[in-house]
């Protein structure tokens, strides 16, 4: 192994294809996005350099602020929903004594393999004001809670976030399940001997040891929430009006419907920065905890040694 790492040519040869692909397919377009955001550009030709004008307009745009607010709501709703349920379900399903584990495992994951369009159409039918299943259930139960689920300017974003959360919860569930499986059973046995209940064992063993998995789950759901687009595109077209716009939708509208590609690129740049900020914050939060726990451990050990 040491010999391999000392072979610089081999390292370069192996890393180069992936690096080249990343540079061409990801890095170069991102650089282009930032560059073009300083241009008045209609998508064709080279455009005119206008400095920060696109950004000035963007920050004054009420839809930009609404989009950010919606993205935040969307990200929080799906993160809370997915991570809470995925944690509960994965812990429950990981119990070997439980009957029907296989069935539940598949059931939770099925929405993930469905096409987003299919899921959205399914929920559109369920949420239909006049003929939808949801309103019909409320009516049958005599509960006066029937409403225009997707036509409410304040609630529509929550409804769409729920649809996304419902579909992708299974993905988080699969990640957490894989994480739980990698925890040695000795830890639980030790906890049991120490008198810990099942809930206590999961609280003190499972969840702390899933820290890295949670980090990935959090990154996926928060960045996924911030750049949400598909559900609103299919279900509400950003509506009613622009009530369910996110930054991605704003970018789409500016570039593809208004042919203001420069403005769209400014929105896209903000999106890239937001995603980067989220990743940095998550990394910082988790690294900080790691360091803190390491420091605490060291202190404890030092105290024990001195005694």
């Amino acid at each position: 192994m040491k010999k391999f790492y000392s072979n610089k040519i081999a390292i370069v040869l192996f890393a180069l294809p992936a690096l080249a692909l990343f540079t061409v397919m990801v890095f170069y377009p991102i650089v282009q996005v930032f560059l073009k955001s300083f241009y008045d550009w209609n998508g064709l030709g080279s455009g005119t350099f206008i400095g920060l004008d696109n950004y000035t307009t963007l920050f004054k745009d009420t839809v930009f602020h609404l989009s950010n607010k919606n993205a935040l709501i969307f990200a929080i709703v799906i993160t809370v929903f997915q991570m809470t349920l995925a944690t509960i379900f994965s812990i429950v399903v990981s119990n070997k004594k439980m009957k029907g584990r296989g069935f539940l495992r598949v059931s939770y994951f099925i929405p993930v393999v469905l096409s987003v369009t299919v899921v959205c159409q399914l929920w559109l039918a369920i949420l239909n004001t006049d003929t939808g299943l949801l309103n019909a259930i409320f009516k049958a139960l005599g509960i006066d809670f029937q409403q225009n689920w997707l036509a409410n300017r304040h609630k529509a974003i929550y409804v769409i976030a729920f649809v996304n959360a419902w579909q992708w919860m299974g993905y988080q569930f699969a990640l957490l399940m894989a994480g739980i499986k990698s925890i040695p059973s000795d830890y639980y046995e030790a906890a049991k001997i120490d008198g810990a209940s099942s809930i206590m064992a999961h609280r003190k063993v499972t969840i702390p040891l899933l820290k890295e998995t949670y980090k990935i789950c959090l990154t996926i759901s928060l960045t996924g929430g911030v750049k949400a687009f598909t559900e609103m595109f299919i279900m509400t077209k950003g509506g009613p009006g622009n009530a369910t716009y996110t930054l991605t939708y704003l970018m789409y509208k500016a570039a593809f419907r208004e042919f203001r590609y420069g403005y769209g690129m400014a929105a896209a740049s903000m999106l890239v920065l937001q995603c980067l900020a989220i990743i940095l914050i998550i990394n910082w939060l988790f690294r900080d905890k790691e360091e803190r726990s390491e420091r605490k451990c060291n202190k404890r050990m030092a105290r024990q040694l001195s005694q």
Partner: protein
Amino acid sequence: MRKLTALVLCGVLCISTLVGCSKKANNEKAENKTTNTTETTTTTTEETEALPEGVLSEEKATLKIYAQYADEDTKVPYDYAVEQLKVAYPNVTLELEPQAQDDGQKLMTYAATGNLPDIYQVALAQIENFKQSGNIMVLNDVAKSTGFEDKVFDSAKNILYNEDGNIYAFPYAGNEYVVWYYNKAIFEKYNVEVPKTFDQLLTAIETFKANGIVPMSMFGAEGWITAAMYDVLATRWDAGGIAKLDNGEGTAKEDAYAKAADMLHTLVKAGMFQGSVTTTNYDQASEMFLNGEAAMFLNGQWYMTDATNKLGDDVDWMYYPSYDEASYEAGKTVWSGGGAAAGYAVNPNSKNAELAAKVAAFLSEKYCEAKVMYRGTPLVALDVDVQPETEFPAMMKKLQADLPAITSITKFDWHLSNATFKTALEDQTKYLMIEDYTPEEFIKELNNALQQ
């Protein structure tokens, strides 16, 4: 064994890649061959003066065309035009790529990557973009040499010439109209008079709702129809409607536009539309009207044939209601709708640009013929010498009788040249379809868009 499998897979990958490349190379060879043949044929054609009867050119070429081909209204004219093309241009083959319903994104991508088809259908907003980037051919000469220009109805000249006086596309649709349809049988059943004023309309809404009938079904998932609804109301106060705003001749803060927004908000609150109006698509809304679940329906005049086929004599159209009877009478000659300098355009970088332009003109003319003959609409751009296969629907005859008296038309949403205003109008009129969005917010946002 693993090594062997990996080797076989790599081999398959390499071979398939090479086959793909070789196919492309073959295609390129074939294209070159076609070009050479075309050049040879062109020379031969020029040398040969007499062409067989009905043949306009014997040039040989395969042309790529990007055109609408989705429903009967687009398939029937296209298929007819292709059949006619086989006679007039026997050596021209069309390779159709149906147009995607994607706000023109695919076409933009083609233009940006230099892959525009030889002939393509284009909307006005894109013409402006393509003009700047040199992706659209000026068709003035071809329009003259083919006689296309002379065949355009005087009343449709506005849809032939661009703002700069040039011809960039061969139109086939004439000026079209937003029509307020209603189900006569439902109106009679519930003793509701055809409303002339908004007050009468509100009374009708109340009656229909009390009897479980949706007053008007609307496909609010599509922004153009909500924009049309707003335009219909705006024209009651200002004949310029949304066209005036698009042309930069007014602001959304003007009285007419504020009153129209107020009126639409009132109608929405009164329950004029179905509950899920903002997510209802065309098929769903149309079904509601055709099945008798809804009493009224807003659409273009092209819907007359389908409506008549399904509802027979029970369907008719009404003049747009207005704020009082006097303005109702005066407003009978003021319509929402219109046309724009859009249609079949040609890629100037096409190897067969001249031929493509002639074919585009030919196709547009044949579209007009097919629309008159098979689609029951005389509202086409060209004066074509054909008779309808069946009689025009009664509603169309009624509209035809009114056409000479029409003094003002506005624009359809897709004919708006200011893309930012168009998008805002679509979004904001959809927003007005919900009760808790105020007309003041609507006006403010629309005005913001106009100022951008």
